[in-house]
């Protein structure tokens, strides 16, 4: 019997190696796997590359990993969001590298990896500083920039409901990066509010099919 549920958040993030690339879902504070990020902090992996839209808030989750000196590089579109003092301090101390990527390019690079493609040409950032050093090609008279696929060793995700196979549903704008990151990592781990019986999620309403999910942990009241 397939059962992807694990008992603890520690089990959920087990095996993350030093130097791993971690896909951290969320937009601002919404749809972020706070419990899994805390578990990763406890787990101890260092020298991490984080892929996220923002670069942490306050001293929790991603910000706490940065404050603890565990992050080597952040690939994000917008670090200046909320209280980003953890990122700012590390950036100014030059202990952390920033790769700034347009938001749609980050998500498409991950989708591209998930789809088994070797990259894509995008008009976004053509002729700007963010395209410096990248291969370009004119397609139908418009300048395009070559973007490589982006994969994670592990994705830390947050959804609403899961079944034991790992089918997922989300809540409103908390969906954001979760489905595309779920598809783009070797190991995809999700914290959910609730486990439901296999068959009780409407097949038409499942957003992330089970094939993309490896481990599920329930957090909160229904854990």
């Amino acid at each position: 019997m397939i059962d992807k549920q694990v008992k603890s958040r520690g089990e959920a993030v087990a095996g993350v190696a030093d130097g791993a690339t971690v896909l951290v879902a969320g937009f601002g504070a919404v749809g972020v796997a706070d419990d899994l990020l805390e578990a990763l902090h406890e787990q101890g992996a260092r020298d991490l590359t984080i892929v996220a839209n923002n670069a942490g808030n306050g001293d929790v989750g991603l910000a706490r990993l940065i404050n603890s000196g565990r992050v080597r590089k952040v690939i994000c579109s917008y670090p200046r969001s909320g209280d980003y003092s953890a990122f700012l301090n590390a950036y100014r101390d030059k202990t952390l590298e920033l790769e700034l990527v347009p938001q749609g390019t980050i998500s498409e690079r991950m989708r591209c990896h998930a789809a088994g493609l070797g990259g894509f040409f995008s008009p976004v950032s053509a002729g700007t500083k963010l395209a410096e050093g990248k291969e370009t090609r004119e397609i139908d008279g418009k300048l395009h920039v070559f973007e490589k696929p982006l994969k994670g060793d592990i994705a830390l995700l947050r959804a609403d409901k899961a079944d034991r196979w790992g089918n997922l549903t989300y809540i409103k704008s908390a969906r954001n990066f979760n489905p595309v990151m779920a598809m783009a990592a070797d190991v995809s781990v999700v914290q959910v509010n609730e486990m439901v019986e296999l068959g009780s999620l409407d097949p038409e309403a499942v957003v992330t099919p089970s094939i993309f999910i490896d481990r599920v942990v329930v957090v909160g009241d229904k854990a």
Partner: protein
Amino acid sequence: MSPSYKPLTREQMAWRAAQDLPEGAFVNLGIGIPTLAASYVPAGREVIFHSENGILGLGPKPEPGMEDENLIDAGKNYTTLVTGGVFMHHADAFLMIRGGHLDISLLGAFEVSEAGDLANWTTEDPSFPPGVGGAMDLAVGAKAIRVIMDHTDKKGNPRILRHCTLPLTAAGCVKRIYTNLAVIDITAQGLFVVEMVDGMTLEKLQSLTEPQLQLSESYQPLALPAAMAA
């Protein structure tokens, strides 16, 4: 000496831009003044707002006490979903932006050039890390890309320039600018003034604008309705 014209307020600029959002349009509003335009869509006109974080059918701010922790807009403020609105994931939200599916992208800007180049993502302040967010995506792909911004900077220097001085967000993308003084179209034949605020002259506007301006054949005064004129 006080000027003989009255610049528009942020709300009045947003109102003016909103008058050009047609029935049935899919529109993305950038953070800042563009966001205000949602409040000024003429009554009876159905316009569907898109948000980069995966919302099609973005609604107004929630009433106090009705905030939903899972429902925020691109500026990370609480928002609502209109009846008929839907959610999608990020790659699809940006597919809509990049792929020509949106009718209008209405953006803020620091500078716009006479070629329609847009600079709105960084002032290159070395003490802070840069952030681009969805700015470069939003400046590519929509069928019409329009800007709302003050006509000059705080010192009175033009922000409509021959060439942008700040790093570009995208080249040649802006087709119309709504400022606090005028509405200006960018065309292959140059910059055309479509409307100016009451009391403004082409000569005065030109002195606040670097590239050459021409009066549009369809020029008319920028008329605010009584409710917006206060």
